[in-house]
C-alpha cells in the first residue's frame, strides 16, 4: 500500500480579477520526494506555492497538505511545514537569535535554546546569532532564513528561489544543506527555481509550468531524453519559446 501524498493539488485554479494565474493544475507529491516547479515569470509558480501554504484561496479546485485542505484546515498542519523565500524577510532590527526564538515559539518548538544552538552549528550561524538580521549580507540572511525554515523540522518544506542572489559558492552550500536535511528527515520538498543547475542537482522530479498550466512533468533524465537536450536549461528554453510544442506538432 502506497503512502498518501504529502501535497496533492486537484484541478487547482486561481483567477485574479480577469487574470488566470493558475489554470486547473493537478499533481501529487509523494512523501520524502523533492520536486522542482519550473517556469518563466508569470507562469504561476509562486501562486501555486502560496495556495499550498494557505496564503491564497484557490478560485476552484483543491489543494491538500498532509491530508489537510488548504487554507480551510491549515491550522491542522502549519506546524508541520515551513517556507523560505528571499522575497519574505524577517524583522531586520531583531538579532538572529531573537528572530529564531520568536519563530521557534510560534511553531511550538520545545527546548528552543538547544534547537537554535543546533541549527547555528549546522548552518554556520554561531558568530551571527547576536547580530542584527538587517546588518547581515544577503548570503548570511539566506542562511538565517533557512534556519527559520528548518526551526520546526518540517515534514513539508516549500522554497521559492532559495538561492536567488547568492554567489555560486553559497548557493552550492545551501543546496548541500537542503539535500542533507531531506536525506536525514525524509522531508517532502517543493522548490520553485529559475536555476537549472540547482534543479538538476537536487530534484528527482520536475513540473514545468507555462501560463498557469503544467506543460510537462517528469524526472530530469526523462525530460532531457524527451526534448533531446543535454541540460534542463535547454529544455526550459524549448518550453518557454514553444519549441517543444512545435516539435510535437511536426511529429
Amino acid at each position, binding site marked *: 500500500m502506497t503512502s498518501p501524498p504529502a501535497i496533492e493539488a486537484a484541478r487547482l485554479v486561481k483567477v*485574479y480579477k480577469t487574470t488566470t494565474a493558475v489554470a486547473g493544475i493537478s499533481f501529487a507529491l509523494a512523501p520524502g520526494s523533492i520536486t522542482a516547479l519550473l517556469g518563466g515569470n508569470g507562469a504561476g509558480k509562486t501562486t501555486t506555492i502560496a495556495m499550498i501554504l494557505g496564503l491564497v484561496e484557490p478560485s476552484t479546485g483543491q489543494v491538500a497538505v498532509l491530508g489537510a485542505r488548504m487554507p480551510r484546515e491549515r491550522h491542522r498542519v*502549519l506546524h508541520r511545514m*515551513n517556507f523560505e523565500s528571499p522575497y519574505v*524577510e524577517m524583522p531586520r532590527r531583531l538579532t538572529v537569535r531573537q528572530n529564531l526564538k*520568536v*519563530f521557534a*515559539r510560534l511553531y*511550538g518548538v520545545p527546548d528552543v535554546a538547544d534547537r537554535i544552538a*543546533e541549527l547555528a552549528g549546522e548552518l554556520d550561524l554561531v558568530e551571527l546569532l547576536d547580530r*542584527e538580521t538587517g546588518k547581515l549580507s544577503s548570503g548570511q540572511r539566506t542562511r538565517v532564513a533557512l534556519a527559520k525554515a528548518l526551526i520546526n523540522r518540517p515534514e513539508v518544506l516549500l522554497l521559492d528561489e532559495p538561492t536567488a542572489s547568492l554567489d555560486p559558492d553559497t548557493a552550492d552550500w545551501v543546496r548541500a544543506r537542503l539535500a542533507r536535511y531531506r536525506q536525514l528527515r525524509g522531508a517532502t520538498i517543493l522548490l520553485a527555481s529559475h536555476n537549472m543547475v540547482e534543479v538538476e542537482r537536487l530534484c528527482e522530479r520536475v513540473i514545468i509550468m507555462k501560463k498557469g498550466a503544467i506543460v510537462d512533468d517528469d524526472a530530469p533524465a526523462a525530460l532531457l531524453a524527451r526534448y533531446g537536450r543535454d541540460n534542463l536549461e535547454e529544455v526550459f528554453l524549448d518550453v518557454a519559446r514553444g519549441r517543444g510544442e512545435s516539435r510535437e506538432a511536426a511529429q
Partner: protein
Amino acid sequence: MSAGPVHARAAGAISPARIGAMVARYWYLLRSSWPRLLDLVYWPAVQMLMWGFLQLYISQNAGFFARAGGTFIGAVLLWDILFRGQLGFSISFLEEMWSRNLANLMISPLKPIEFVIALMIMSLVRLAIGIIPVTLLAIAFFGFNLFGLGFALAAFFVNLLLTSWAVGIFVSGLVLRNGLGAENMAWTIMFIFLPLTCVYYPVAVLPTWLQHVAWLLPPTYVFEGMRALIIAHVFRLDLMLQALALNVVFFAAGTFAFLTLLKSARTSGALMQTGE
C-alpha cells in the same frame, strides 16, 4: 540534524506561547530603539503641557473655568489613552508590513485571534510607557492627579481602550487587504473622534443632529462622564455602562471586519504582496 518531532504543542486552541512569542517580538523591537521609546512619551507630554498652561491662563480669567479646573488636562490625558491605544495597536501591526514579515506569520501556526491579542497587549505596553510619565508630569506641573479619579479612571480607561482596540483591529484589516497604501488611515482615523466625541466640550455644544451621531460613539460617554466627575463631582455609572454596551458592538464589528478583510486578502492574493 537530530531526530524527533519538535512541534508537539503547536496545533489546538489559543496558545499563550504563540501570543508570548509575538509580544516578545515587539518588545525586542521597542527596546532596541531609543527613538521609538522617546516617541511614545514626547507628543503626549507636549500636548499635556500646552493644554495645561492654556487651562491655567483661562482659569485665572473666567469663573467657570476656575471651578472646572482639570477638565482640559483630564481630557488631554483621556484622549491620549484613546489615540495612543489605537496607534499602539496599529503601529505594532504596521511593523510587520514594514519589515515584510507578514507572510512568515501568516504561514506559521499563529492564529488571527492570537495575533490580535498580542497586538492588544503591546498597545497596553506602549500606552503605559507613554502615559504614565505624562500623568506624573501633570501632577508635577498642574497638580492634576489622574490616578486620583480612582474607580472612575478604571471605567474610563477600560472603555477608551476597548474603542481604541476596535478601531485598531479595523484599521489593521484595511492595511492587510489594501497594503501600505492604507497606512495613513492608521495615523489619522482616530481624529474623526476628536470633534465628534466632544473631548474638550460638552455634547450640548453640537447641533442637535450631530449630537445623535456623537451618542453613537462610546468615547462620548467617557468624556461626558469625566466632565461630570471633575465639575459636578458625580460619577455617572449609567454613562459608563452605555459606553461599555456600545463598545461590545464596536469590538464585534471591528473583529468581524478584520476577519472579512483577511479572508478577502487571501482571495485577492494581498497576503503575498504586502507592500504598497
